[in-house]
């Protein structure tokens, strides 16, 4: 059956759980999106922008030295790090930005964790001549300083959020509050396959180009399908972006969550591995929550995975068994970051490094006729200072 249903449900997940002030806006948005998605001119503009502005299609790159290092399966990289502004996030912000313009909205707002979605929204706002406010947890502002500077250069106003744990979930809370007060002329560009319907569906649709291309590219190289697709999952937009094209194929789909300091500690962000169903930020999905239904603080080395929820379609894919979800620790991700940098000359984002670590782990157990595609969702320039500090503190621990 086509997911989601008419009310935005993916099986028992998804739906619309927001205050009444926002309900008319998300109903209006859904109607506007369905109309735009059926409009050839809108789709042509979206695709044209992806080709000439974003630089799509991004390459599907065979990682020869990484594959030899892993010593088993062949590893392929879908190079979203080469998309304009440095990550897959731009695919979605181009789509939502064009939709906002079409709806006559004047202002864009966004939440951001690692800053990639904030940068991608600020980029599109500049391109379309719209103004832009980005809500970002104060802790993330500190961890991701280069992206804050980029957003400001692009003309966006970055609003540090100090409530709660001062990370991505709090940025999203504050963006929702701000949107409640400005809903008439403001478009909320949500960056993941989360939030109330229609966002999980719409963001997936704008991101599915990743998998559509990867499938075509892999078939062209190999005249067969890959065995496994792997991608990191915070909210889960790059994962659904690459999974969607393969849903009906006999291809394993493997999401990778952040195990932080370990799944058996309190410091992780592995929502599907360790959470329970609940409602946060407008939809029903898995959540990290305590026994009373209060949301727990997640933890990850990477700001983009540091989120206590997950897109509702992932919860559905987990429960239906179509996709499986593993987890990778901070240390494993950091190792994968260095390995890819040295072996292939590609500096990956710490988020994407989780998918890489999982691919290396899987490849080791397989033979060379097995093929794994990794969604390399973003580049690591934003993480350089953070990685430098982490590496320095590790060295001093060893001493």
């Amino acid at each position: 059956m086509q997911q989601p249903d008419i009310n935005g449900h993916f099986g028992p997940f998804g739906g619309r759980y927001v205050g009444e002030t926002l309900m008319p806006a998300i109903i209006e948005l859904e109607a506007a999106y369905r109309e735009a998605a059926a409009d050839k001119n809108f789709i042509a503009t979206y695709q044209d922008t992806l080709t000439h502005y974003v630089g799509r299609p991004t390459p599907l790159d065979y990682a020869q030295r990484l594959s030899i290092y892993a010593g088993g399966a062949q590893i392929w990289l879908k190079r979203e790090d080469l998309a304009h502004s440095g990550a897959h996030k731009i695919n979605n912000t181009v789509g939502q930005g064009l939709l906002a313009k079409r709806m006559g909205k004047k202002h864009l707002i966004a939440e951001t964790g690692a800053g990639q979605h904030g940068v991608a929204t600020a980029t599109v706002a500049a391109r379309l001549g719209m103004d832009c406010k980005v809500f970002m947890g104060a802790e993330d502002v500190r961890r991701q300083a280069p992206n804050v500077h980029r957003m400001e250069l692009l003309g966006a106003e970055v609003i540090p959020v100090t409530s709660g744990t001062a990370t991505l979930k709090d940025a999203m809370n504050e963006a929702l509050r701000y949107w409640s007060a400005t809903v008439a002329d403001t478009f909320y560009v949500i960056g993941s396959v989360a939030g109330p319907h229609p966002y999980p569906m719409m963001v997936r649709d704008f991101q599915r180009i990743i998998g559509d291309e990867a499938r075509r590219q892999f078939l062209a190289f190999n005249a067969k399908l890959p065995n496994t697709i792997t991608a990191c999952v915070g909210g889960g937009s790059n994962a659904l972006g690459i999974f969607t094209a393969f849903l009906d194929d006999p291809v394993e789909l493997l999401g990778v969550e952040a195990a932080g300091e370990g799944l058996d500690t309190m410091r992780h962000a592995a929502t599907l591995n360790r959470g329970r169903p609940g409602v946060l930020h407008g939809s029903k999905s898995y959540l990290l929550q305590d026994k009373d239904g209060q949301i727990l603080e997640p933890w990850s080395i990477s700001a983009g995975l540091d989120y206590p929820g997950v897109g509702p379609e992932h919860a559905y894919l987990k429960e239906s068994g179509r996709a499986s979800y593993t987890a990778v620790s901070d240390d494993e991700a950091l190792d994968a970051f260095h390995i890819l940098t040295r072996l292939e000359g590609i500096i990956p984002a710490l988020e994407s490094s989780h998918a890489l670590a999982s691919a290396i782990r899987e490849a080791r157990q397989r033979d060379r006729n097995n093929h794994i595609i990794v969604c390399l969702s973003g580049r690591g320039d934003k993480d350089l200072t953070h990685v430098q500090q982490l590496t320095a503190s590790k060295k001093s621990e060893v001493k």
Partner: protein
Amino acid sequence: MNRFEKTFAALSSANRKALIAYFTAGDPDMHSSFATLDAACKAGVDILELGVPFSDATSDGPVIQAAASRALANGATLQGVIDLAARLRAAHPDLPLVIFSYYNPILNFGLERLGAVLDAAGVDGLLIVDLPPEESAELTTQFGDLDLPLIRLVAPTTPPQRMATIADGAGGFIYLITRIGVTGSGTLDIAALARQAGELRKFTPLPICLGFGISTAADARQLGSLADGIIIGSALVALAHEAGEQAPQIVAERVAAIRAALDHN
């Protein structure tokens, strides 16, 4: 007749408006919270909304977010709020009591057992701020024959055709949000509000009460004339917090002043 119907019938025959108070339950702890709420009810509150503290209150402004954080730091839970409701029920046999919550604590509690627990505590209704009519069937179908109405909200942004959907299946009263934005904020457009209340009246026989950002006796007097009652939340929560140990007395004085303004319409 349930307690909502009795309360509104009595107010109506006395030509008075309902004064509805919201407090974050358990702020700063359950013991102090009981004393403040009990005093407020004695001073002239007609209906009491007990706010269930939630870690991610996306419809609330800073005052209620901070109150929720204090309550959670002192161990507030939904069960604790229901226990508080039972104590208030014993002290105020005729007062309608509403549990006001975000959906996640409710869902986490277990929808199957919730109705019976609320009923046993003497709770009269439920308001779930992030549960629109489109998603509420999974909850209400669990209530069976229990008289536990869902109080629903209409916003300044709600178009007339949607009011019908909201009114259908609503109970107790309708909460008409007076301003765009979160609790305790925003600017008031009286003419637009009067239009919205008039429009809503076409779709429901239920009492219409106005809330969000009402803080002073003057606000109460002005808005009371537009509807069947008014709801005050953030202003009382802030007052109780600032008053510290004096909260019961100071909140009671403010409630009495608002009551007087509302009655001299």
